């Protein structure tokens, strides 16, 4: 592996990634590097390929052609759980809790299966409670996942992702359908996670949140990158505005 001496090596490197469904190209030749510690915003209108792209990163979809490198390792053909163990975690656009379990058990699955080093059950419980406290869910630890409110579900998804000890966290519209105060709550959470040395890719429709959060923003339309840069640069971009306002 050769590394550019001046810039830090990218944490995640996507090279010419393409994903087709039958005749439909959902992601079209996308290349992008994500730097360690970055807060990366991913925007684009509905159906522009955002979720498909992160499905390719997390391994839910196989890509062909295209390469995904994580910490200089080619993970293109790895199964999702292997990627999780290497440090890629994600939340889902529509929350996917383990419905038959409590909140604590949801997190324990991630701790049991994705934890890097062997730690005792007691330690894992401590870690779990730590994450829940950080997320403001400590009081709900023994509640059934099905009894959570929408915002609690979103938080639990993030907490479960955090329990895998990620280096890269992908948050897929974690604020959709929340009230503005709840949006702020979740946004603050993500900010605090980012300050704990976790790289975050945030997919979001709520523009203020993206603007406030991101170091860098990428906009997709019809599977292609149409803009990339600082939040204000991207928002000023003519094509982005067209894509959002519609033609």
């Amino acid at each position, binding site marked *: 592996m050769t590394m550019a001496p001046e810039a830090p090596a990218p944490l995640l490197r996507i090279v010419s990634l393409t994903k087709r469904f039958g005749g439909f190209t959902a992601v079209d030749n996308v290349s992008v590097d994500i730097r360690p510690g970055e807060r990366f915003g991913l925007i684009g209108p509905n159906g522009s390929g955002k979720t498909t792209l992160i499905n390719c990163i997390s*391994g839910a979809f196989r890509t062909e052609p295209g390469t995904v490198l994580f910490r200089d390792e080619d993970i293109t053909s790895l*199964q*999702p*759980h292997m990627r999780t163990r290497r440090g890629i975690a994600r939340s889902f656009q529509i929350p996917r*809790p383990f419905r*038959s379990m409590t909140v604590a058990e949801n997190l*324990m*699955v991630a701790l*049991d299966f994705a934890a890097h080093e062997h730690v005792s059950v007691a330690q894992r419980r401590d870690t779990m409670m730590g994450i829940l406290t950080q997320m403001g869910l400590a009081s709900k630890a023994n509640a059934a996942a099905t009894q959570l409110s929408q915002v609690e579900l979103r938080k639990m998804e993030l907490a479960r992702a955090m329990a895998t000890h990620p280096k890269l966290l992908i948050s897929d519209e974690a604020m959709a359908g929340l009230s503005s105060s709840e949006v702020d709550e979740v946004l603050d959470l993500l900010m605090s996670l980012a300050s704990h040395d976790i790289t975050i890719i945030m997919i979001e429709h709520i523009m203020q949140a993206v603007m406030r959060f991101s170091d860098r923003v990428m906009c997709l339309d019809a599977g292609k990158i149409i803009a990339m840069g600082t939040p204000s640069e991207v928002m000023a971009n003519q094509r982005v505005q067209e894509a959002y306002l519609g033609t």
Partner: protein
Amino acid sequence: MKRSGAAFWIGAAAFLAVAFVMTKVIGNQYPFFAGYVILQFIALAVAWSILGGYAGYVNFGTSAFYGVGVYASVFLVKAFGAPLPVQILTAAAIGALMGFALGLLTLRMQGIFFSIATIALTIIIETVVTNWRYVGGAAGIQIQRPPVTAPFDNYVQLLFFIQAVLVVLAVAISRYIQNSWIGRGLQALKDDELAAECSGVPTLRLKLLACVISGALLCAVGAPGAMYLQYADPSSAFNLNYSVSTLAMSLIGGTAHWIGPVIGAIVLSTTQQLLTVTISSEVNVLVLGVMLVLFVVGAPEGIIGLARRIFHRSNEGRE
């Protein structure tokens, strides 16, 4: 945890001891004939729910595994005169292989598609056995039992005890899985396969494991069936009844805990045995149908779910 483990093994040992003592003190053969059938269904239901209950993959092919177990024994007896333990172990090995194949199916299919694929598999295997003249083909085959070995003085008692051992084995494995990381992983993938993967659960490996264990046990349980009947024919060995009964027993008992299929199998197969020797007519089939409908409608979590709810309610009442 530790204490309940000790209690479980004491219970299991006591169960086997009772089964053994029964073969010594009861001279009447009927309890062993009927008991064998009940034990067989307990083992089948427990084995089935390792895949069907914990992992949520509904296998309609119980009769395929059972039938293959029976015919593995028939073949071994006819070709080599193999003794019963060899029959059971070989059947388990074949069952594990079949389970592995079934596990590969889960790569591409979920939900009812998986179930339909297992039906297809059953019909294919039954057709192959039906056309296999060496083991009798469609005409069926009569098999001679070897002389019974000590400490038993009757072959049916021996089979009864062996089936009791298989029950303990199946329950012990099921219990171990439930309490271990395997069980939590299966439960997670049952709830949501993608979310489980993204939480680090190796879903494919766990599904294969569940399929292999479940398949090996189902076949092993079928193996002594050849010696029990001393006769085998494809339409009896691959009877749809095994698939439906096993499914019904697991659902009626509840699949969230290993005790569920045990209870369900005891309730349903005892009822069936009793009905056979009491009402004994088409009403028998009617009872199975009505019980199935009543339980899935009225007690979605099975008997253990019902028990839990009642327990909770009485607790709340006291507080």
